[in-house]
């Protein structure tokens, strides 16, 4: 290299400023240099350069890799997915129905396959941004994927939480939040211990974020920690803690709240006339109540301050207090509330309580009898386990199979995120078939979105039937584009599952 650098230096400075004489070299190169005519300065310089450059390229010293290569990945324990499925994945990663990836990965893991090696880097890169991919991806990484993720810090999310406890101390905010959320789902006690070990050093914003993960796997064992968080100096932390405690009916906070609220509601049975709930508003909101998460100011002026306090208090009282205290059934309580002047306050408070306590009986009665389901009460529907969500939707479809926009059912459809049951899928396909036959749908602006939703969520076992029954009655009109996309989507999902399930 020195030889080349010497010749190169002259060429950079220029022969006008520095004369060139070929360096003395031994061997063949030296013999060649000796033949160069220094009177032709440029010729000699180029000649020496050409010879040296070729000499060095031909005799190029091989690069020695100093660092030893990383240990190879462990032998795989699960089989690679079929080749047709591997190719489909490649297409999806190139942008073809990319949003079906979670479903694809889930299907692979159900069959006990791992993702193909050649696509692992693309999947990991995608999951850096798309968090919804991380969990399904983690199940199909195989040894190869975990080995790969261990080589690049951006991919540490893909390594099991068990291996990643150290991340709690050293990870980025993102990594730490993800770690604690995963761990709460698997081992809530260990997650809590981890959080307690560093609680004093977290920033207020981080404390709020970390506490939010406690909604997973919450149990009475969490109470002491949550109770102590009620004294946090950040309001959002206190409010989160109070909300979490209200999910634990046996907690001290729930008892305190019950004592405050019990005197304010009176259930009176009338022999003649109707049962009645009499409401007294709380007189004041003291420090103790605020510690338990009650906010002073109502979110809108439609609600008075005191009514707002009571609504929040109701949300934190175990629901069985009301049935046991009054001896009334839930139906009777809701019917009475319906006639009360404070109807909105009562139902809103109880809806919140039912959602937090996951009380299925209350939720269903509220949904069917008490309140009209709209976006304001979406939390109530969403707090149902997915099976019950789908049952609810199925009931309303059986009552009326029409799928018209602005109808409540469409909104419910949008909210049902868990894999749809075969039953629900079939009911929707039947509804679509009715509309396709009538062709009464083309003018509705919400219709392409609805088709897309059904195409995306329909149970794989019902897809083939969906294609044949709908395409048999549908006559192409101005809705052609939307239906073509619908069929493409269904076909893609059908093939995808067929390739994986063989």
């Amino acid at each position: 290299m020195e030889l080349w650098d010497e010749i190169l230096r002259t060429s950079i400075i220029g022969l006008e400023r520095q004369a060139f004489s070929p360096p003395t070299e031994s061997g063949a190169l030296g013999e060649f240099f000796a033949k160069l005519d220094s009177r032709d300065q440029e010729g000699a310089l180029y000649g020496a350069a050409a010879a040296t450059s070729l000499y060095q390229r031909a005799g190029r010293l091989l690069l020695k890799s100093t660092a030893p290569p990383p240990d190879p990945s462990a032998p795989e324990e699960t089989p690679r997915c079929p080749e047709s499925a591997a190719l489909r994945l490649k297409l999806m990663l190139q942008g073809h129905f990319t949003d079906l990836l979670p479903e694809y990965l889930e299907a692979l893991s159900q069959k006990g396959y791992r993702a193909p090696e050649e696509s692992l880097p693309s999947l990991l890169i995608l999951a850096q941004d798309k968090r919804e991919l991380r969990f399904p991806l983690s199940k199909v990484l195989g040894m190869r994927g975990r080995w790969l993720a261990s080589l690049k810090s951006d991919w540490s999310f893909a390594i099991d939480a068990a291996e990643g406890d150290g991340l709690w101390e050293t990870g980025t905010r993102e990594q730490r939040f993800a770690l604690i959320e995963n761990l709460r789902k698997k081992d809530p006690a260990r997650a809590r211990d981890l959080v307690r070990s560093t609680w004093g050093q977290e920033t207020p914003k981080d404390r709020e974020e970390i506490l939010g993960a406690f909604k997973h796997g919450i149990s009475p064992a969490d109470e002491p920690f949550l109770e102590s968080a009620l004294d946090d100096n950040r309001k959002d932390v206190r409010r989160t803690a109070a909300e979490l405690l209200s999910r634990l009916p046996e907690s001290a906070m729930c008892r305190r709240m019950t004592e405050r609220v019990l005197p304010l509601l009176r259930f009176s049975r009338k022999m003649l006339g109707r049962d009645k709930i009499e409401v007294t508003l709380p007189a004041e909101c003291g420090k103790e109540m605020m510690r338990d998460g009650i906010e002073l100011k109502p979110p809108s002026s439609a609600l008075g301050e005191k009514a707002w306090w009571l609504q929040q208090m109701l949300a934190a009282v175990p629901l069985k207090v009301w049935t046991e205290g009054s001896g009334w059934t839930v139906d009777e309580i809701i019917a009475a509330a319906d006639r009360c002047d404070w109807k909105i306050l009562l139902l809103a408070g109880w809806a919140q309580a039912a959602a937090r306590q996951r009380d299925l009986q209350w939720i269903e009665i509220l949904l069917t009898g008490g309140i009209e389901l709209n976006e304001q009460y979406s939390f109530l529907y969403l707090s149902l386990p997915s099976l019950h969500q789908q049952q609810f939707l199925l009931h309303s479809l059986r009552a009326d199979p029409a799928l018209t926009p602005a109808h409540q059912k469409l909104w419910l459809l949008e909210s049902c995120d868990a894999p749809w049951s075969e039953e629900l899928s079939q009911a929707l396909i039947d509804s679509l078939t009715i509309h396709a036959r009538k062709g009464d749908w083309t003018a509705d602006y919400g219709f392409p979105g609805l088709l897309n939703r059904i195409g995306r969520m329909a149970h794989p076992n019902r897809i083939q039937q969906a294609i044949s029954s709908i395409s048999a009655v549908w006559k192409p009109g101005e809705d052609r584009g939307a239906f073509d996309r619908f069929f493409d989507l269904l076909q893609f999902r059908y093939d995808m599952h067929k390739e994986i399930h063989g």
Partner: protein
Amino acid sequence: MNWTAEQILSLSPDASSTKAGQSLAAERHWRGLGCDQRAAWGLCQGSGKEPYRTQIDLSEPAFRCSCPSRKFPCKHGLGLFLLLAAQSKLFKEAEQPPWVGEWLGSRVDRAEKRAEKQARAIEERGVDAVAQSKRAERREERVKSGLQELELWLRDLVRQGLAAAQTAPQQFWERPASRLVDDQAPGLARMVREMAGAAQSGEGWQSRLFERASLLYLLIEGYKRLGSLPLETQARIRSVIGWTENQDELLQTSGVHDRWVILGRRIVEEDRLKTQRTWMIGRETKRPALVLHFANGSQPLDVSFVPGTEFDAELVFFPGAYPLRALVKERKSEAALSIDTPGETGIACAFQAYAAALGQNPWIDLVPMALKGVTPVFRSDDRERWLLRDSSGVAAPLAFQFPGGWQLASISGGRPITIFGEWDGDHLWPLSIQSEGRFLNLS
């Protein structure tokens, strides 16, 4: 042979065709599906009244469709081919409909006509020998004067020093380059433009620029004493300067018979000119070959050479020292899947072979390399820069712009694999991999 969906999709001209072709690979889009030994066909309902007639000549493969798309193969061709690969049961063995038979017939006719035309052209050239030799003489003169000017320019360059070259305006490079085009030495024009690129290539640019300049100078010196050089070197120098071989004539000479395994393919685009490099190797002769295809703008490239397949053929090599470039004179069999590929060596051997090639042809720019027993590793100082390392620790660096380093690592899992690619003297650009009995095309 049974084509795999992967190979079929590697024929796709672009991502949107891949997507559309994939969607069309469903039974509901097709009617009248049929096939025989040679071809497959079907009718696809498009947006028009008449369905499109789509057909594939399976021996190469070659496509034809009555749709107006200018892409090649079009989405219907891809869709039909994918459907055939996935669900061959849908295709009934049948007599070719007239529109299929006509096309296949015309393909044979065309091939015959082409051969006839070639023969005729050569005959005519014989008749026109006088005029032709005059033309050739004129060109020699022009090239000679072009080279003289170029030599002066090169001499100026080092007299004034390279330091000035980096900030020189575009014209500084473009003027001599376009003069060389006028003087019918397009190969040299390209080399001058490469020098302009080297001057802008960041740290270490002086070395890269000077290396190119000195090779250009070497070429001028070689041309001055052309008569005294061996015939093969003469041919090489002439081809680097930009004399093109007459391909019709070349195809009349006899070539190398072998079973050719397609190892990799790369398409590069420059100024709307697409160049497709297909690398193959002979099973018996172990001889590497490079087949080039060119296409302007949106013109389609040849799709009949699929990496991971092989076929019997006679190839004619362009003359020159260390000949690589070749034309396929005649295919003698259908394409078949390659189970294993020949010609792999260790890194040290491959470098020796490269040195030998350089000794025969100093202006060589790309050689094929099939390296066995190499493990992709990132450099300890930069995890996005990759090396291929053999068991003794010897390593070959990958091109910086090569995007698939992590993919190679994932496929190898930290164990040795076989990688085929293009070596440019400094870096390797991987094109295909063999691992655990699988051939993976990277392009």
